[in-house]
């Protein structure tokens, strides 16, 4: 029977199936960070249980870490306790760990692929919703809660029901100045924040195949913002070239054998999807969000929408609430909205390719007066690579701050946060109320668009910054 890519990976990992369809699913890779794991390790300790496969588990600190000089340790007491707790737990349970001062430290969803820990055809979980990122390699990767973290630590399995299949096919090619971030924002704008609920999204089509791995990670990363359990892209030559030679990836003959298998990881031509959405890449423009969830998004050349145009009264009320929070007026040109802060980084857009994009716009220009612009590499290795290419100099000469790796202002658990009322052009993934700090206002966009906003002092169309 014809199968989707999701079904192929799923079926290869079913340990047992219960009468009601619930499956005991085997997990190949478990990524652990400091925020969602302390209670899970504590649960193991209380019950006298062990980690079943420390060698399939890896831990890193990312959410809480300061992105300024950290040679003096971590000043914020709660953050320090959480990080020290992880350090104690990995030592006690024998879990491999990338500590704060390791060059390889970084955001968990950047370092998994970067280290070759995340591989095509594997199941990957992490106590973080953006685990969907790793699906770009053709892995089934999804976020879980802390109880499930504990379940995976103890059993290397999860109790799950299979998801439904949603195919998002993107035909044609993206226009110049339009990136993977714009594409995924356009997809979320089309299907909505709950459009993927209960589904795994497989992205396919010419525009997806043309993306480099960085772009594919960005697209899969934001699958959760459409409510999907996971995002998937069939592995191809781009994927294999990316994985080859990475530290934890198979090497030599084992790699060649793996590639032979990985080539079978694609949906059969007559596979049945529960839903299919088709987009024309050529119609996608540089995008920016105007509201407080990622589906509230428009092309940068548009104007702020008018709640009075919404037919459903609840929708009208929700739009008005968003505009009140965002301090925007219907009809206002998005490209005229002044900004205070720019954040370039996160698991969505903290890769070397993203920093190159930002530097390309920043080169020879200056951050507008009064604007604070942060660039936070996704990992220590991204930072080192950017410095080797001189990108840090281009950015700092233009007035950007060049910082240490971590989640930073995407989640504002460390000192990088917006003050109430501040408005930020951000390459992160969520524009929820207060996400970047209480009262902060977030406009999601691509790295190039964020850099353009920094220079213009307002949301700006990157196509004017060629």
């Amino acid at each position: 029977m014809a199968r989707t890519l999701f079904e192929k990976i799923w079926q290869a990992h079913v340990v047992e199936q219960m009468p009601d369809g619930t499956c005991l699913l085997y997990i190949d890779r478990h990524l652990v960070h400091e925020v969602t794991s302390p209670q899970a390790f504590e649960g193991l300790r209380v019950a006298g249980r062990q980690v079943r496969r420390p060698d399939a588990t890896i831990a890193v600190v990312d959410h809480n870490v300061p992105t300024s000089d950290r040679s003096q340790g971590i000043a914020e007491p709660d953050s320090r306790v959480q990080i020290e707790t992880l350090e104690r737990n990995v030592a006690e349970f024998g879990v491999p760990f990338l500590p704060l001062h390791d060059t390889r430290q970084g955001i968990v969803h950047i370092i998994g692929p970067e280290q070759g820990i995340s591989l095509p055809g594997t199941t990957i979980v992490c106590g973080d919703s953006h685990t969907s990122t790793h699906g770009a390699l053709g892995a089934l990767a999804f976020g879980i809660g802390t109880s499930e973290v504990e379940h995976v630590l103890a059993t290397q399995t999860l109790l799950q029901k299979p998801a439904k299949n949603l195919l998002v096919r993107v035909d044609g090619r993206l226009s110049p100045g339009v990136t993977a971030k714009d594409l995924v924002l356009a997809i979320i704008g089309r299907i909505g924040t709950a459009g993927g609920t209960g589904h795994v999204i497989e992205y396919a089509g010419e525009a997806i195949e043309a993306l480099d791995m960085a772009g594919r990670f960005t697209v899969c990363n934001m699958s959760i913002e459409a409510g999907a359990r996971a995002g998937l892209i069939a592995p191809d030559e781009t994927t294999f070239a990316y994985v080859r030679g990475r530290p934890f990836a198979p090497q030599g003959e084992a790699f060649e054998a793996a590639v032979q298998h990985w080539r079978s990881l694609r949906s059969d031509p007559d596979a049945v999807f529960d839903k299919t959405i088709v987009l024309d890449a050529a119609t996608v423009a540089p995008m920016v969000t105007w509201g407080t969830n990622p589906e509230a998004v428009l092309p940068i050349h548009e104007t702020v929408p008018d709640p009075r145009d919404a037919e459903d009264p609840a929708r009208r009320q929700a739009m008005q609430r968003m505009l009140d929070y965002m301090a925007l007026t219907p009809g206002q040109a998005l490209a005229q909205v002044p900004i205070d802060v720019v954040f370039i980084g996160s698991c969505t857009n903290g890769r070397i390719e993203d920093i190159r994009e930002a530097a390309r716009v920043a080169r020879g220009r200056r951050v507008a007066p009064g604007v604070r612009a942060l660039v936070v590499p996704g990992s220590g290795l991204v930072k080192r690579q950017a410095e080797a290419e001189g990108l840090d100099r281009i950015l700092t000469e233009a007035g950007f701050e060049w910082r240490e790796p971590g989640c930073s202002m995407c989640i504002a658990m460390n000192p990088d946060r917006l003050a109430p009322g501040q408005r930020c052009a951000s390459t992160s993934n969520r524009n929820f109320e207060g996400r970047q700090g209480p009262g902060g206002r977030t406009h999601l966009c691509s790295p190039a668009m964020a850099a353009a906003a920094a220079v213009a002092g307002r949301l700006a169309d990157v196509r004017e910054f060629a």
Partner: protein
Amino acid sequence: MPPFTSLTAIAAPLPLANVDTDKIIPARFLKTIARTGLGVHLFDALRYDEHGAERPDFVLNREPYRAAQILIAHENFGCGSSREHAPWALLDFGIRCIIAPDFADIFHNNCFKNGILPVRLSRAICDALIADASLGPNARLTVDLESQIVARPNGETVAFDIDPSRKRALLLGLDEIGETLQRASAIAAFEGRHRAASPWIPGLAS
């Protein structure tokens, strides 16, 4: 996990769609290594002003809803992050049941792991229950898991669907990890087959 069998309690109306996990519990309160004590931060931005004073118009700051154990909301409740701190905060406040047209997947999962019953009912029924819940001191609903029924103050009942294995786990307050560990031999057998079929997935121990 505390079992969930039947609950008769005050229901609080929260007629908002897309209530995200940052709204349920902002990230700055996730810097804890405990599961308890988060109830005071539940719905922080909706519940308190910038000086930390209660906003008198927010439902959970009003009587009788301070004692609510049931919450009724609109579509896509719990969207956003995987933080289990969201159900922990709800539970710590006293909420044991959430009724909405639909839930985000990870939040939905997380509820079941904590003895919270998420009930999916149509938007029209949710709106009727929200009207019930707005009756003040009479805003009591009964949610019975065994019979899969919500009983309204006027005596009408509404049936809801639930996955049989999840129902059983909630009714018994099962320790799922303990249950799965009883399948250890099946897991070990799978590992043997899986290693043979996919020898290129190396261990991470350095």
